[in-house]
């Protein structure tokens, strides 16, 4: 494999002066031109992961360990100012709610042009380039729309403007945090199609965060499954769907009603995600895991390779033995 464009190593973030751990020892690499899907439920820390990479953590949250290497440079070692510069050029992010991410009293075209102007592009050229970007993100009649305000646009159109702003900086890595969650399903389909197209055309490297495995199936090349702030599993998307190794991944897939599966009783995961203030010792999934063994409650499992490109944090991933029989015995 080529050198990853973005590499996160041992990222740990804490809250409340270090007493509460939000993310623990999260590591992954993003290859150039790859889409890494990050899937997790609320409380998994997936948004914190995005903000950590962007260097935009809220004040109360601190990164206590880990490196964030973008194209060979450790962002975490940079001064906040230098990190901000990288954020303006090499790293971009789109959010779940475009309405709150856009400035409500500024014309949307100007918000895109602002990013271009920061790169030293003269005003007139920036205006033209903004229209081109609007065309790229398939906003109809871009010449008129650049003069509109955010509230005049639909949710889907606003998200397209956000994507245009992100692309204006010509970033090496784009982080998308639940960009389609607030949208209707038909609009979501359009935005996913658009992101896929742009990603192919521009060879964009994309970290796509979502709670929706269907969206993951649509867009991801590889998938990182987060559970309660730890990586549960990381693997190519087909392996995640066909041969999940972590009991949590498996249960998650089974608990979703699928449009083309016979309707039976849904498989459920008992209980709920442990609260961030009261993480259990050992494996954080242990209390909900039907295959748990004594050791699971004692030691937290390390992320181990199951095959060359699949790793799971489980003392007994499915690939090695059949834990089902053992659990039944």
């Amino acid at each position, binding site marked *: 494999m080529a050198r990853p464009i973005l590499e996160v190593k041992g990222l740990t973030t804490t809250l409340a002066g270090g007493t509460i751990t939000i993310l623990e020892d999260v590591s992954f690499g993003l290859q150039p031109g790859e889409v890494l899907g990050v899937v997790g*439920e*609320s409380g998994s820390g997936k948004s914190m992961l995005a903000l950590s990479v962007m260097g935009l953590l809220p004040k109360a949250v601190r990164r206590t360990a880990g490196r964030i290497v973008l194209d060979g440079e450790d962002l975490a070692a940079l001064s906040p100012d230098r990190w901000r510069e990288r954020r303006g050029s090499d790293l971009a992010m789109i959010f779940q709610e475009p309405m709150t991410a856009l400035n409500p009293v500024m014309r949307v075209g100007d918000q895109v042009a602002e990013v271009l102007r920061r790169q030293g592009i003269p005003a007139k050229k920036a205006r033209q380039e903004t229209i081109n970007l609007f065309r790229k993100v398939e906003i*109809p009649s871009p010449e008129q729309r650049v003069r509109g305000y955010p509230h005049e646009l*639909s949710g*889907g*159109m606003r998200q397209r403007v956000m994507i245009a702003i992100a692309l204006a900086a010509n970033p090496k890595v784009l982080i998308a945090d639940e960009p389609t969650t607030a949208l*209707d*399903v*038909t*609009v*979501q*389909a*359009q935005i*996913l*199609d658009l992101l896929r197209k742009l990603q192919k055309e521009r060879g964009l490297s994309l970290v796509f965060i979502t*709670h*929706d*495995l*269907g*969206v993951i*199936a*649509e867009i*991801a090349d590889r998938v990182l499954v987060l559970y309660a702030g730890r990586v549960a599993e990381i693997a190519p*998307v*087909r392996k995640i*769907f066909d041969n999940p190794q972590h009991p949590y991944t498996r*249960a*998650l897939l089974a*608990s*979703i*009603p*699928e*449009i*083309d*599966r016979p*309707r039976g*009783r*849904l*498989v*459920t*995961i*008992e209980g*709920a*995600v442990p609260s961030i203030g009261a993480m259990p010792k050992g494996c954080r999934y242990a209390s909900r895991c039907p295959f748990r063994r004594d050791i699971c409650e004692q030691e937290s499992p390390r992320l181990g390779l199951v095959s060359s490109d699949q790793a799971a944090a489980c003392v007994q991933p499915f690939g090695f033995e059949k834990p089902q029989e053992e659990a039944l015995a």
Partner: protein
Amino acid sequence: MTFETVIEARGVTKVFSTQRGLFRRRSVGARAVDGLNLTVRSGETLGLVGESGCGKSTTGRLLLRLIEPTAGSVLFNGRDLTELSTGELRSSRRQMQIIFQDPYGSLNPRMTIGDAIAEAYIIHGIGDRASRQRWVLEMLDLVRLPRSAVTRYPHEFSGGQRQRVGIARALALKPNFVVCDEAVSALDVSVQAQIINLLQDLQNELKLTYLFISHNLSVVRHISDRVAVMYLGRIVEIADVDALFTRPAHPYTQALLSAIPRSHPDEPRHRHPLTGDLPSALAIPKGCRFASRCPFVQNRCRTFDPPLDPTPDHSLVACHRAADGTLPAYSLNS
């Protein structure tokens, strides 16, 4: 086949009017629900799907007369709800209830779980203190919550647990018709499955009739017997769940289904993309309201509003071309 009807909406319309202008005030009306006809059959789960702004939540509230319709009538077990006095309506609420979307906003933060459920009995003056206490505990058992929850406050519970409280409150009076308004949409997927299973179990145990409102088509397919598709304040198609998901007749239903994310990365993708935006409810177009975005639009669609007509396989569709049989054949996997 004959069915016993629990609730029936006849030409129900809701116009939300807002005043515009400072001096010369004029009323601007948004037709959230526009001449809606719908029947819910006893014991079934009728799924109601549509995108945001289509009026599906308003429909749920109109059926319960939680908001007053601008026109039309709602027959509940044969009685017209819109004709009832405030007092009669209040007592009829024992038979119809609603489960809300937001497990955080739907419980009064200053009331214990026990008080929240017991309020149902107090409002209707049923039972004494001791029997109410007993019933509350039974309701907690029913929704699989620990009995110790009774003296606790909502903020002490997770979203899924709060949703169980909301269900217990809705079912406390033993209603026969329950509107589930996006009841699992705010929950994490692993918790969502628990609540879906619970709703299904309770339906079997208590012989409930559900109107299940959701934007999540996979969930609707899983739980529903029949499905109604709403677009811009109207029903455009109603069919049995399997018919609707395998042979969607209305072009909008087809577009909606093709937009559902795939369940596996290898599944072929075949979209019927929708162009343009939803027209505003303030200015509903003449003719078929889907015409502006329909890939199969003809001239007549822009002039004549298609009625919701029966098709050969017992479903109802509001589309000129579906009625003629001139729509191209639909396939999700072509």
